[in-house]
């Protein structure tokens, strides 16, 4: 975990003081709501349906136990005892009072946290692979670059007033756990033949009402030129992105309008003129790398007797190990996925008690490291296999051991009509109904990897476009309907889903998913995922079955 130095801490303190002054001016009537809105949004404070919502930044999804405990304490002290982890790996509190917000910022700053640029038309919280530093797949630790970008983008003088919000993801593994291709910029660390590090730079992905998969504009950017290249991209966007229509203001529209080739040409032309000025010195990159306090791993046997005994003796643990435990780069360790998708629960929600338990486990068994995933789960990236049974038992005691990672009930859902001022339809209860349908874990495992993503409106916070099954809530004359799409993916094989057919009423959605799964089980060939079967058969058999049932 990156250790903040005195400079990083000063910047948080100064920001917090600035925000306190702005809130005071608002409460005293010196700022009206129109003037205050863009200021509070830059500090993560939204006005939602029922109350203020505070979106706390969790840069590249990385937390230490003290931070998670502080979030739990804030949940208990200023909210209703829980928080909501989002697809941007942030944490949202949904019941905040404006007058409390400055104090909350100070409490956050006391553990090196903040809500800077979690909203607003600026560079948002940079996300990274939640397995960073733990998976053998990666060729370098993407957090180093994510942290460097966090600093570069914080209160950036030129790029804080962009046409629209701007999201960057960085990964270093062939398996993409960041949804890089649906970001404004997706960066994939690569190694050249000569051993040097570089980024594949993908630009112009995004969801919302116009979904796009990002285009690669550079196959290999030497890592030491990252910041001048970002500057060139953002400068082209700042100057030429549309500002007349909020729905056409994202960089994806500029890239699509110009064409990726022409956009790349403009970026390269600007980049040549930017020169070498804005890049970070190697010493600073080395310092950041060093500030991620290195983990010390023991020399362990790849086989753990304690783990094997528990697995043989307890079917529930065996199931957890099958679905929620991933291989670690060091023998004898594992990556433990903590599901925030308990059957019947709200996807992404965690109670204060649950947060505290995860913090304790990270401290005791997990090298003080916790990650948030864009799929709204938590990860303990470094757990000895010997300790996995104890971790499982402690998670299970607070409802966090649901063995459903990547399975049908591991659903992304936005807050929907229950919380969000933008939503047209509920998302949470739809997720809950589907999860209930697949409550039997054996059946869920038989189905295998199946990513369901639900959004309550076309803004697509629930990433429905890239769900293997995507579900979009729409309002039809005051009634909630749901459009289903199939075949989307937010991973390295990213694709936008294809519409199944006419929208279905609320009470038909879970049954329709059940039908889709049955069609898949009937059609699948040797080990195919749902997505692979769909790609082979096309929409026809699925459509036929769902609408035959509907008639």
């Amino acid at each position, binding site marked *: 975990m990156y250790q903040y*130095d005195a400079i990083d801490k*000063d*910047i948080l303190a100064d*920001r917090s003081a600035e925000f306190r002054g702005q809130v005071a001016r608002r409460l005293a009537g010196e700022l009206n709501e129109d003037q205050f809105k863009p200021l509070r949004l830059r500090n993560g404070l939204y006005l939602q349906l029922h109350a203020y919502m505070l979106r706390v930044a969790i840069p590249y999804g990385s937390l230490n136990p003290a931070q998670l405990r502080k979030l739990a304490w804030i949940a208990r002290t200023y909210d209703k005892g829980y928080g909501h982890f989002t697809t941007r790996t942030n944490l949202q509190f949904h019941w905040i009072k404006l007058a409390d917000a400055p104090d909350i910022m100070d409490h956050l700053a006391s553990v090196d946290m903040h809500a800077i640029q979690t909203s607003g038309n600026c560079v948002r919280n940079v996300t990274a692979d939640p397995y960073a530093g733990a998976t053998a797949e990666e060729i370098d630790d993407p957090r180093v670059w994510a942290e460097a970008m966090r600093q570069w983008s914080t*209160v950036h003088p030129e790029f804080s*007033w962009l046409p629209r919000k701007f999201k960057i993801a960085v990964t270093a593994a062939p398996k993409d756990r960041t949804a890089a291709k649906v970001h404004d910029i997706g960066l994939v660390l690569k190694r050249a033949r000569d051993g040097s590090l570089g980024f594949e730079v993908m630009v112009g992905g995004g969801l919302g009402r116009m979904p796009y998969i990002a285009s690669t504009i550079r196959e290999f950017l030497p890592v030491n030129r990252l910041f001048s290249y970002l500057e060139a991209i953002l400068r082209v966007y700042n100057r030429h992105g549309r500002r007349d229509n909020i729905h056409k203001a994202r960089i994806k529209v500029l890239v699509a309008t110009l064409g990726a080739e022409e956009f790349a040409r403009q970026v390269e032309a600007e980049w040549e003129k930017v020169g070498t000025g804005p890049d970070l*010195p190697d010493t600073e990159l080395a310092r950041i790398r060093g500030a991620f306090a290195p983990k010390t791993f023991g020399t362990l046997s790849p086989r753990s007797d304690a783990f094997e005994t528990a697995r043989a003796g307890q079917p529930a643990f065996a199931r957890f190990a099958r679905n929620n435990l991933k291989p670690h780069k060091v023998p004898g360790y594992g990556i433990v996925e903590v599901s925030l998708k308990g059957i019947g629960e709200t996807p992404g929600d965690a109670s204060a008690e649950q947060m505290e338990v995860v913090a304790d486990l990270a401290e005791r068994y997990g090298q003080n490291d916790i990650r948030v995933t864009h799929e709204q789960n938590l990860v303990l990236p470094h757990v000895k296999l010997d300790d996995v049974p104890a971790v499982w038992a402690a998670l299970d005691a607070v409802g966090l051991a649901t063995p459903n990672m990547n399975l049908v009930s591991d659903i992304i859902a936005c807050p929907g009509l229950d919380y969000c001022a933008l939503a047209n339809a509920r998302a949470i209860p739809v997720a809950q109904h589907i999860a209930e349908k697949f409550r039997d874990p054996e059946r869920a495992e038989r189905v295998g990897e199946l990513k369901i993503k639900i959004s309550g409106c076309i803004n697509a916070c629930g990433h429905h476009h890239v769900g293997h099954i995507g579900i979009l809530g729409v309002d039809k004359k005051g009634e909630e309907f749901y459009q289903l799409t199939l075949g989307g993916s937010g991973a390295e094989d990213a694709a936008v889903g294809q519409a199944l057919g006419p929208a279905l009423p609320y009470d038909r959605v879970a049954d329709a998913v059940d039908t889709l799964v049955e069609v898949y089980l009937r059609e699948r060939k040797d080990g195919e995922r749902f997505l692979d079967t769909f790609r082979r058969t096309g929409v026809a058999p699925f459509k036929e079955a769902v609408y035959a049932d509907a008639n």
Partner: protein
Amino acid sequence: MPTRIKLHDARFDLAEDPFTAVGDEREIPPGDVIISLARFQEHGEWLLSDGRKVGVRLESHEEVEALAYDLPRLSLVALAFPKFGDGRAYTSARLLRERYGFKGEVRAVGDVLREQAGFMVRCGFDAFEPADGSTPQDWDKAVHRFRHVYQRAVDGRPPAFAERGK
């Protein structure tokens, strides 16, 4: 004579404005003037040969490249903020200073609020016509709000990585 906030030697003062901003519909009066890009392109040569100081106002969609060859003869470029959230002028200011080495006044006009002070100064603005009644003291406070900055910019403040490298 109208006033504007002027930054010089790291201090913000209320200073009299020697320039008259002239809309396209008005006749050009004697003295130092700020005119639109279109008007400059039409009458700039004549005005400059008249021996007076000339400034050009660029709207946020107009690009500084249009002035590239005239900049050494201009005394001022005013960059317009039609809304304070329209951030194109920040790029324009940086390009004026960094790419074209413009030494004259770079003035922020339009929807200019103290909340933007830090961003503007870092991008090379040195004169301001605030729309929110803010004073030089407000600007001074806003600009010095952050004791450190993370990035290099026009103002020459050492970024965090340079401070750390010492």
